[in-house]
């Protein structure tokens, strides 16, 4: 995902590569049961719209959504959340 214009995002991407300021929709979460459940419980369910507040690229992200509030997700978690970019 080198060049970053909004149109380059079509299909599913890990949250870890989405740039700051974009709003994305969670499609699925790949991971162990404990982690998936944790993310669901704080409101990061499939279908949830989240804003990427901070992304340090190949590092953790900070996201925000009405239910979840502001959360920081480690890189290990962010790359397991598959999202699609909203226009």
């Amino acid at each position, binding site marked *: 995902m080198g060049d970053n214009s909004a149109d380059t995002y079509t299909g599913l991407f890990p949250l870890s590569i989405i740039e700051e300021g974009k709003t994305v929709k969670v499609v699925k979460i790949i991971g162990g049961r404990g982690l998936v*459940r944790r993310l669901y*419980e*704080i409101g990061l369910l499939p279908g949830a719209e989240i804003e990427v507040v901070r992304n340090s690229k190949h590092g*953790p992200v900070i996201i925000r959504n009405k239910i979840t*509030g*502001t959360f*920081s997700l480690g890189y290990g978690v962010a790359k397991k959340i598959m999202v699609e970019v909203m226009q």
Partner: protein
Amino acid sequence: MSCHELSSPTTLGNKHELIKVAIVGNPNVGKSALFNKLTGGNAWVGNWPGVTVEKKTGRIVIEGHEVELVDLPGIYGLTPYSLDEVIARKFILEERPRIVIQVINATNLERNLYLTIQLLEMNVKLIIALNMIDLAEKEGLEIDINGLMNQLNILIIPTIAVKEVGVDNLTKAIIMELNSPPPFFKINYGPEIEEAIQRIERILDKCEIADVGANSRWIAIHLLEDDKDIEELFRKRGLEDVLRKVVEIKRDLQTRLGESIEVLMIEKRYQYILSLTQKYVKRRHVKESLTTFTDRLDRILTHPILGLMIFISTLYLLFKFSFDVASPLTNLLDVLISGHVHSFLKTLPLPTIISSLLADGVLQGVGILLIFIPNLFFLFLGISFLEDTGYLARVTFLSDKWMNKIGLSGRVIIPLLIGFGCNVPAILSTRVLGDDRDRRLTMLIIPFMSCSARLPIYLLFTLVFFKENQMLVILSIYFIGVTTAIITALLFNKLLFKGQTSGYVMDMPPYLIPSVGNIFAKSWERIKSFLVRAGSIIVIMMVIIWALSIFGPEGYLGVEALRNPDLLSRSWIASFSKLIEPLFKPFNWDWRVISSLLFGFVAKEVVVSSLSVLYNVEEADLSTVLSTSFTPLTAYSLMVFTLLYTPCMATAATLRSEIGLKNTIFIIIYELFIAYIMAYLVLSIGGLLL
């Protein structure tokens, strides 16, 4: 008794009965602050049965009722993820507190209400402390508390824990709720799921699981959501056939829904919550809210370069602050204990061996503990301050990228930081890590964080040999510790803990001005965990070492041995040191240095005082003696060795309680080995250079 009945019938309050009240909530909602205000600081820390997680309880009397408040670890929902959360759920489920107080962060009702819904589904008697209500107002939120209260049929008390607002109302609410019936609460999960719940309930009604601590609807819901703990419980009771039937019902439901049952159920709960907040919460637009302020500050503080630089400066200030402020107090305590109290004990009309036991064994041990306290306290004060402002959450974010490179998550940075103060609370603080692999790996490297007990050793040697570059040399030692930790993490990633860290999930609270009382309470708690765990061990070990010094292969040497190097050289300690002396031939350390290192296993700072005894000089004159028996290079290699060679007794004991004896012994051996290698490297590389 059939499954759907409650395990403990609600008895009406008799005044002499102890009323158990649990306090729960998401992380970062001000739960601990509220607990401290409710108990008036009268809390004590014990252990949860069977595990080593600390349990905070406090007793208060409200209108003649004796109430025991239990502070549970922060949780987001009732499905456990980390060790902390297992405890919280277990307590609610198995110990059945009479009342549960959920502390809610009013600025984020939606996420917080998820736990509320789960608690209500369990039919627990719930009181909500709607905390940080002032912040919610500032954010432009208008919450119709009465409306919400009537809808959920529970008491909701607005509070501002840090300012003690609403605390009285909360205690009154406890009494009001005592005799009210448990609430009835049900979410409609839709026809398909509801039918499955009823089918499971019918199966449950035929079996004996009344002591699970919840109603059968709750159990059915959790079985549908693949609750592993409940399944385990059924298996233990030999109820596999029930589980098999449940699996069938689930498969049936799954094909009808075509979607994950779990997701649908959580969605239903959130839909319900959103319907509540739409009805009872109004949002006004505010120009300068806490969120916009936080965002602006975060642009700098979480910046990959700027943020990192600020973090490093903050770290430097933190250590500088804690050491500078503590040093006069440390010196004062030192003079008092090893001077005045020591000589006072010696003057008591007691047999010499007893007075020596008290003064040189017990007091020495107590002294070691006390001398640590100022340093630790100020460091923890700083860390708690950073934690409560919300900055540590940012530090976690900043470090994640770097920590990932050594196979750990950013969450690990906080235990490592605490490790610079004392390894004991550092190891305890790894419990918040959700991932067992991360936890074990972190515990393995924590002892390489040079704790404050090791500083006196560096100070002594640098003062003698590196007077000009003292600060730089000490820093280099810390650096070697961190480097060894990194190498260890990388090595064990390859060998033992294969795979990657599962990362972290962490709330990013807004920046707040912390409450002084809370910071003090938190720091004191961390100190207490050090005292409780390390206290008795250090004192007992000190007495053992005292005994090994005044007895030798030829028998009792007399208490003079402690002051007389000739006598001491015939003690058990000396004999053992001489036995292993050849091992340390490359370093040119004689038996006295080795003995000091053995003493240092109790607590590393003892190395200095032992050296002074063994060389038979006052601590102040130690430098002259050392300058003749060491070269700068051998001194430096000794510093590196003391940095790395095995965790101290207290740390080892904490490790043992957390990960077992076998793993602890492994860590001790590994670290001895690494210390030897590194000290040897220093010597040979230094020898080539000089």
